[in-house]
């Protein structure tokens, strides 16, 4: 059984092919992480699954599927006064108790009356998550949810996601390029670069040559947790190696900066 499934998903931005016949599915309760270098189509894939961007191919959602979406950022117009409580009541209203409990749950208790515009990056991400969770979603879709957080904040946020999954059984599909933290939280990792390079359990992907080609070896230390060497299956990749050289360079740089 799958909650959401895409077959041969193809996205173009003008003449540029962003996603080329991508197949993806998420099962209930599963944490799936999409990793890939900048411009690899991660965000486009999420947007296409959400129906926010025109795409070719077939997206099938379970009937009545409730999606909790946590965007990369929220551009607030300064003309709109918006306390946290009002924001959490969109699109459906919740009781003060439900809101207080949820804010407590995501680790930012008692900020109902604060203006959303005045929140720090980490607080805003947790409030965005709280809003998504209040709708009791079947699946959470998070687009680089820890952008702008420091490493502590990042690790804390992913632990929170794991806890929420454990408590509620919600499935999670997220995009990230914080490889090391994310991988430990994932059941399945999809390595994307316009097409799916490889996918599987974190330790499998981490050792896959396709993954190494994109991200280099700079993450080895951080991924020491998953050193079950060479048990990856070789079917997971398909035609790779076209424009990976360039991607390799940028990705390596990124990892080094992040590390």
């Amino acid at each position, binding site marked *: 059984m799958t909650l959401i499934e895409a077959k041969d998903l193809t996205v173009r931005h003008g003449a540029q092919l962003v996603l080329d016949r991508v197949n993806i599915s998420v099962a209930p309760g599963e944490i799936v992480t999409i990793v890939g270098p900048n411009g690899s189509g991660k965000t486009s894939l999420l947007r296409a699954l959400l129906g926010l961007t025109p795409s070719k191919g077939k997206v099938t959602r379970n009937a009545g599927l409730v999606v909790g979406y946590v965007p990369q950022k*929220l551009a607030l*117009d300064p*003309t709109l*006064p918006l306390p946290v409580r009002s924001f959490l009541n*969109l*699109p459906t209203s919740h009781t003060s108790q439900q809101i207080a409990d949820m804010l407590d749950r995501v680790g930012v208790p008692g900020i109902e009356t604060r203006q959303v515009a005045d929140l720090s990056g980490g607080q805003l991400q947790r409030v965005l998550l709280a809003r998504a969770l209040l709708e009791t979603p079947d699946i959470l879709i998070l687009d680089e949810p820890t952008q702008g957080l420091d490493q502590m904040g990042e690790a804390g946020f992913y632990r929170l996601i794991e806890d929420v999954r454990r408590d509620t059984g919600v499935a999670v599909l997220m995009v990230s390029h914080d490889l090391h933290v994310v991988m430990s939280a994932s059941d399945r990792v999809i390595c994307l670069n316009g097409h799916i390079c490889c996918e599987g359990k974190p330790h499998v992907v981490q050792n896959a040559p396709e993954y190494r080609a994109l991200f280099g070896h700079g993450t080895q230390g951080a991924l020491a947790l998953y050193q079950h060497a060479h048990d990856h299956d070789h079917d997971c990749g398909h035609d790779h190696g076209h424009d990976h050289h360039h991607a390799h360079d940028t990705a390596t740089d990124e990892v080094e900066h992040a590390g």
Partner: protein
Amino acid sequence: MLDDFLVRAVLAGFGLSIATGPLGAFVVWRRMAYFGDATAHAAILGVALALIFSLPISLGTLIVALAMAGAISLMMAQGQSPDSGLGVLSFGALATGLVAISFVPKVRVDLSAYLFGDILTVTRSDLLLIWGGAGLIAVVIAWRWSKLLLSTLSADLAAASGVKPHRESLVITVSIALVVAVSLKVVGALLVSAMLIIPATAARRVSSSPVQMVLAAVMVSWVASGAGLWASLRLDTPAGPSIIVAAALIFVLTTGYRTIRTPSA
């Protein structure tokens, strides 16, 4: 009581405010000020066409305002720069309207009444139209409140929650056209969007939630209508512009209040 022209004028101003308060807040949040202007300017063309074809004025303005709103939405959906395109449509429609009115035979048209409003000559049927139209807009906005607000905040968040942001945009667009049609008599085509923008902007300074801002905008409009009419009577100034001047003065006051309360800002 309704026989008194001043009572009718006050009622017209109050009635219009229950639409321009909430709608004005959305126009400000969505940065559609120029959109409101263009739609209102098109109303002059509507007046001309209504006079030529002997239609009720409000029907003519509503049709042309709707057409204008549709044209702008279409243009923006195609990704053209709204700025210059809106200017072309806005002034094109205004000028065409002014030229067309000059062709209206044997009718002595008081053009300034349509440009700046003529609230002191509001009739009972005008009142019915104003309260009916404004009430409809207020009810629709209250009914779709959270969908409208979420779409305004983020089209992506709205779409992911199953709200259709395009549909909510259409609600706002049609409401603007409707408010233009019913407010022509009160403040006129040139000042309609002032009635949308100024009270809502003044309200922003003293509000900390969206609902508060809407209520404050309605109250600013009420006070401005009352004060403007009073000034118009005492000082013999044109009523529509006086209402807008009053609203602008309230804006200055609330801005001062905000500055005093938050000295660092």
